[in-house]
């Protein structure tokens, strides 16, 4: 299996992280698009954000880029903010979900179609 072998011997680069990020991101998107459970959608969002975070960290990592000898903090800082905001978002979304559950007795988002045009 040449690809696996090369994965083990070659150094890891930004592209590898990007691929992992892409996988997480797409999983998140698919999760959002397929789950009928509001909390499932919330999990999808977490995955999406996480995928983005992987990218941010990878792009900001001196180990991976190997082009600048200096410490690069921008990517990590962005990731920090994303994590914090994700927490905030989770709190609000959870609150909305609970509220929705209280009102409708269900957390099936397909029922929440009162905005239908």
């Amino acid at each position, binding site marked *: 299996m040449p*690809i696996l072998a090369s994965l083990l011997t070659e150094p890891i680069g930004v592209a590898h992280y990007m691929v992992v990020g892409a996988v997480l991101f797409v999983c998140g998107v698919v999760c959002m*698009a397929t789950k009928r459970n509001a909390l499932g959608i919330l999990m999808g969002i977490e995955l999406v954000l996480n995928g983005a975070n992987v990218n941010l960290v990878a792009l900001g990592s001196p180990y991976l880029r190997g082009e600048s000898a200096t410490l690069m903090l921008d990517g990590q800082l962005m990731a920090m903010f994303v994590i914090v905001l994700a927490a905030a978002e989770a709190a609000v979304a959870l609150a909305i979900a609970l509220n929705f559950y209280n009102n409708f007795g269900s957390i099936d988002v397909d029922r929440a179609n009162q905005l239908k045009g």
Partner: protein
Amino acid sequence: MQSARHSTPMNPATTLPTILAIAWLLPLAAFALVWVGYSLPQMAGGRASYGAQRTAGWLATGAIGTSCVLAIVALIIWLTQTAPHEVATVHETAAAHQAASEHMASPPTSYSGIYYTLAQFGKLRISIGYYIDALTIAMFALVTLISTCVHIYSMGYMHEELEDMVDREIATPDGNYYHRPGRYHRFYQYLSLFSFSMLGLLLAGNLAMVFMFWELVGICSYFLIGFYFERPSASYAANKAFIVNRVGDFGMLIGLMALWSCLGTLDFGDSNTPGMFSQLRSEAHQYELDAAAMGSESADTNYLLLFVAGVGLFCGCVGKSAQFPLHTWLPDAMEGPTPVSALVHSATMVAAGVYLVGRCYPIFVPEALLVIAIVGAITLTLAATIAITAYDIKRVLAYSTISQLGYMMLALGLGGWAAGLFHLITHAFFKSLLFLCSGSVIHAVHTNDMRQMGGLRHKMPWTAYTMLIGCLAIIGAGIPALGIGLSGYFSKDAIIEQAWSFARVNESSGYQLLMWLPLGGAFITACYMFRLWFMTFTGMPANTERYDHAHESPRSMVGVLVLLAVFAVGVGWHVPGSKLSVTSLLERARPAGTLETTTGTWLPNLTVPDEHLSHEPQIAIPAGWSAFAMAMGGLLLAAIIYVWRWLRAEEIQQSFSPIHRLFVNAWWFDQLYDWMFVRPALWKSKFFAGIDRYVIDPFVNLLARGTAFLARALDLVVDRKAVDGSINGLARLTWDFGNSLHRLQTGNLRQYVVFIVVGLLGLFAAVSLCWKYALAG
């Protein structure tokens, strides 16, 4: 070109034409014998007994079997008596490759000559001749072999014709089924005539002869599709096949006329006078295509003529090989008996179009090749999409055939001469295998509908597992890391490598599609082939009554299946211990000057890459892995839906119902053609016939009446329809537009997510189409 390099007692220049001519004429002899021996008693009012009919089957089988032996003898003579071309091996340095391609720039060994002349006018001559090169020999062996297999198979499959037959497709007015005498010998007669015609097509030394046999295989196909001519659907399908083919032949005639009028010959080889190829690619021009040979004054006209000739010829191939837009006849052609579908409508006749493009490869300008590639790409995608939704097991295979032919055309159009023809050969084996397996299934359960099958692998294991081999071969199953696989793995990889190579040298994003479509096609192929296999052989029996009556086919049929399965596995391999393989044989026939990277004249940014470049590792490895991933993905999807049943097919159909309906109705091509061509033709014919009737009437009278009518019609149309209608129409349009937009607001959260993704992808596609660096980052 006569090659006199070998003065051995068995001079191939004389032995090969004789051997192949005998192999060619033997089926004709069988046809004639059966005709005389079995039709004369009929003329005297009697009928050939069924015992005699069985003899006819043996006679025809013996004839084609002998042909097969002769063809193999010819192949051996060819391999031993002619010096092989140095074939550039796969992984070589650029310098060695350069040297190899320079060496390749000489005409391949071939023998051409004339059996007899049909007519001669001054310098113009039309004759029955031969042109024998490695391609001819390979195709000869292929066709005779598959034809022999089908002959043997048919002895089992058609045995119902050996007694008075009850046709269950036709109900008579009194409520019974239609009874008729069996036509066993007739079937073999048609098969023999077909074999003769097909071999003549392969042996043909000039395009006129190709055209004649082209029509002959067409008429044999007509007879065989219409074998059950009592069924209206069969006679309709036969007509459709022949007429649609004639539409292609119309284009082919134009190509023939252009070549004939400009070059004064239609010969492939040089017998006495220079043939087409050596005129168009003369040695003086280093075998490059030289449009000036077309002989008119301006270079543009020459190039145009050459383009017209190429596209015209290709039109013929579009008809015969059921390419878009003339693909509609092939699925209907499945009305014929299944062995016929295996022989005529998958392995040989429909591949003749691909063969002809390969044969006439030297005359195609890059723009014509682009046309071929585009048609191929459209066809392979279109047919694959239809195959996913079909339930008739033979129709799935028919659409799969169209799709695979599209692959071959695509490969040829992108410069992959050997790749396309290699796929032609491998496809012939595994597709005939698949058809014969489906025939075995139909023979057992007496239905074509896959929804009535299921679980049959317990009842007919041989059929099931040989068919599994066929399915694996067609999806190109193999292990890329080890470089081993079934035959389809090698040939499909070669095509995708060529597409990859083409997409690398042509950066314009439109050309990239020619790489993505075959890759996507590979996914769909795997999906529908395994859908077929899973639906037929796994799961629970859908119809227990049919299941209980199912049984393994007789030994003559199963034996053929096993033989073909062996070929389907191994035909892509090298002969152990030598460099000899189908590809190396094909390389010996590669037309001079076609292993070059060429660029278009009208489209200067169109580059058709040298085929050997596609074997470079930086192309071959990613292409191979992508193809592998696609095939596995398709297989997985089929398994998800039909084995593990995570997804339910009915639900998918429902939520994609517009697309599903589009596919199920084969993109409405039949209806479209009916409206676009058939009805207008009938109207026109009524019109012409009507003219005749009214010539007698006073012409002026008619004119006056016509004028009055026209005035009234104008009043009606212009005043009422146009003026009032346009205002109302505008209003309605606005209303409808608003309505249709409002439907987008579904209120469904998950659909919004889907919209976002679609928008993202659309944006990406739009940007990458306009800005070629978008994909490259």
